[in-house]
């Protein structure tokens, strides 16, 4: 009872309640505050961990400036920023239809990688033997088909036998990686197993700029996917299946068909991203061609709430952080793991802000204040 006596007259210190709804303005102000806080904490981390900043505290401004410098200091960096954003966005867009259906496709990495591999395979065997235009088209078709295949296999298993798609798609990533190793051994039998840049199969350069076409393709894709998800029957079916399989069955949607169809699309768009990597910049394939963007894409899609237009922003933000962090590691002479820490801090705040958008936190005495306000 002594415990109780102490509790007498006290209300809990903190309690949480789910928000019924939140205005868009308020939600965005929470997000902006979160980003600002993240940047502030980054500064503190920099102060604690980076010697250069520690010794000259006035360099903290330069530290922040470097983030922007990474993407905007030269025209070359800026175009690199745009191109990398476009490829990342393309992968995120590819994952979006699946995610809207609550099909957790964690295989974007592998689906993209087999896209790269198939495009390069076509290039490797046919490059120089057929006209460049036809080669590019064949490469595209191969990449789309391979991506679609990689996407549809887990979908069939899920639709027919109810396997867990998260694990399945994840495992397919490894198969894709080893497949690339296998082909590299065949193509480059001796030595390093590194395939040099191929001469053919490069996307046309428009206005003296090799990146414009990639950016344009992805912008068009963003708009198309937005329309597909929002205004077509297929998009509607995806939303219904994602929200409730039972509702889908109730109105006669064959959810298996929708799952398979959507994963073909998702895989195919990953294949497109692979094509952009293969024909747009790399012209070669390594096991690291996609470089983890298949996973980063998951984050981009989540942060953008599976809305293609919002994902324009989130992919740019992630890319900005990446390039900024790289620049910091170069300019301040620090280990690249440290820059990962900095990116992690900012993402932590951004993702954490969603909690405060969904929940309200009350401190002791809040209720009385609210009551007083209500009376006024």
């Amino acid at each position, binding site marked *: 009872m002594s415990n109780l006596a102490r509790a007498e007259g006290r209300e809990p210190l903190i309690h949480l309640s789910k928000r*019924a709804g939140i205005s868009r303005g308020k939600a965005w102000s929470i997000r902006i505050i979160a980003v600002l806080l993240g940047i502030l904490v980054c500064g503190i981390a920099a102060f604690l961990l980076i010697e250069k900043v520690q010794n000259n505290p006035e360099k903290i401004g330069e530290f922040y400036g470097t983030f922007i410098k990474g993407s905007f200091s030269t025209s070359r960096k800026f175009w690199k920023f745009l191109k990398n954003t476009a490829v990342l966005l393309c992968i995120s867009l590819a994952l979006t239809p699946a995610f809207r259906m609550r099909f957790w496709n964690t295989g974007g990495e592998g689906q993209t990688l087999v896209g790269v591999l198939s495009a390069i395979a076509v290039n490797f065997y046919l490059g120089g033997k057929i006209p460049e235009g036809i080669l590019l088209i064949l490469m595209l078709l191969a990449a789309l088909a391979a991506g679609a295949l990689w996407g549809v296999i887990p979908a069939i298993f899920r639709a027919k036998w109810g396997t867990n798609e998260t694990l399945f798609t994840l495992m397919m990533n490894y198969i894709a990686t080893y497949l690339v190793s296998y082909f590299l051994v065949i193509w480059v039998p001796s030595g390093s197993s590194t395939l040099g840049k191929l001469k053919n199969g490069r996307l046309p350069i428009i206005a003296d700029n090799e990146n414009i076409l990639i950016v344009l393709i992805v912008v068009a894709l963003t708009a198309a996917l937005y329309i597909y998800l929002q205004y077509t029957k297929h998009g*509607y079916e995806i939303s219904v299946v994602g*929200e409730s399989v*039972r509702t889908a069955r109730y*109105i006669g949607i064959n959810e298996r068909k929708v799952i398979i169809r959507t994963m073909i699309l998702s895989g195919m768009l990953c294949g497109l991203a692979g094509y952009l990597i293969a024909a747009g910049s790399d012209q070669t394939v390594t096991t690291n061609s996609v470089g983890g963007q298949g996973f980063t894409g998951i984050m981009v899609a989540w942060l953008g709430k599976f809305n293609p237009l919002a994902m324009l922003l989130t992919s740019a933000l992630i890319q900005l952080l990446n390039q900024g962090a790289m620049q910091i590691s170069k300019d301040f002479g620090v280990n690249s793991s440290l820059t990962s820490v900095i990116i992690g801090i900012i993402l932590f705040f951004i993702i954490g802000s969603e909690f405060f958008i969904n929940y309200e936190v009350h401190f002791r005495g809040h209720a009385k204040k*609210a*009551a007083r306000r209500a009376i006024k």
Partner: protein
Amino acid sequence: MEKQIALQLRGITKRFGPVLANKHVDLDVYRGEILAVLGENGCGKTTLMNMISGIYYPDEGQILIDGKEVVIRSPKDAFDHRIGMIHQHFKLVDLFSAAENIVLGLEKKGRYNLKEINAEVAKIAERYGFHLDPAKKIYDMSVSEKQTVEIIKVLYRGADILILDEPTAVLTPQEITRLFDVLRRMKEDGKSIIIITHKLNEVLEVSDRVAILRRGEHIATVNTDETNEAELTEMMVGRKISLNISRSAPVNAVPRLEVKDLNLFDKEGIQVLKDITFTANGGEILGIAGIAGSGQRQLLEAIAGLQPAADGSVLFYNPKKDRPVTFYHKSLKKVKEMAAQGAFHDRNLNDVSFRGMRDKAIRKWVESGDVLFREDEEMNLRGKDPLEIRQLGIHLSFVPEDRLGMGLVGSMDITDNMMLRSYRKGHAGFLDRKKPKEQAEEIIRELQVVTPGVSTPVRRLSGGNVQKVLVGREIAYAPKVLMAAYPVRGLDIGASYTIYRLLNRQKESGVAVMFVGEDLDVLLELCDRIMVMNGGRITGFVDARTTTKEEIGLLMVRTEQREEEAHE
């Protein structure tokens, strides 16, 4: 003798965001009384009780027990003050026995002696007249037995104030009588009992006093023997309301749906429907009564094509006799085949065979509307999925029990939910939101759905308004058969009567209505015939105009009787 006050609430207020769930509620509960807390859904009854039992913490106000202010921050605090709540949804571990569940979570010193506990539990059961075997596992128990375990659990912990949240919702009439006997015995023992309900007849039968809540406010507390149904309703709803369901005699009742020897097995291979045979007539409301989980849901889902039946048939008689043939749901080939079988006649009752005619001429003739069906079309729905049923042109509407999990998509707005039924129409691959939007606006207007607009996610609407959207959509489809599973569950009186009126209007326009209900009073007032189910079988049919609740109650628990009779 002056009665002793056990529990006092003073100025209790609780907000959820902008919603005021309870507003300055004052309430007294005496020792040795049964207090009914009456109010419509969403009036704050459960919230108020949750604050007494420590689930929520009030924003303002005081709770006094035996005249002393207390702070209740958790269910454990509530137990320390001898308050216990029996929730609507039982919180029991299936694999444990009754006694094990009862002591679960108790931090008592000493050894865990199941024998002793069993004896104690049996003693409590005997004292208040419960029938309970302490060693029986929960998974072997009926709903009523599980409820008994919940009540004894609370008593075992020494509760003097018991709160029961809608305890009768899941019981048969006989079980309700038994529960009320137990409650009276507890009252005589000096316990205070608070019973939350929205059923007026139960309030009048069992309680000593009634506290009425409306929109979070305490309207009044009256002595039960000084009031009546009409007065209580008026206080509860805030205006006079007629509690009569106008039931018309069925006109032209013709068989519309005939289910024969239907058997259904669930995923685990357990038989959930056994030899179901019945006929639903157009122009009639067929009630389906039974304890929850007797196969009602499976039956409706099997008819709607959501569960593949093992055998039997579901025949639908499409009322086509003397109506023009159309190409809406039939191909030219199918029309020619049917004509060859003599299914059509012209305006002068002569046979139409299309023999020797060219396709174009046939098309023209059919489109002129002069080719008529000779008989109603007979179609077997078994083995067809919902889309195939729809493509046959069968207007079968289904209001499922699980509104937001099956009938509607909670995160979508009203327009997009209207579209669920019709999105496949027109515009090639693109959606047409114009017509569904008009339909949504019409339903909002006609059924007085309270919503900020057509683009509000239906999840944000109250239960009654969600149901109006769902029923409105299903009726807008101009059904020939309308199946509704628990369509008024969780709805307030006003909304319930709107739904009853809608069902009646459908019946009057010739629809075969099937109504799965849990409130026997409503079934008796609304339906023409009532079919009773238990354990996946039909245990009987009764005429709703002449039967009694007791008769239905007996059929609801009748088990293998028919088989026993057959064996003898």
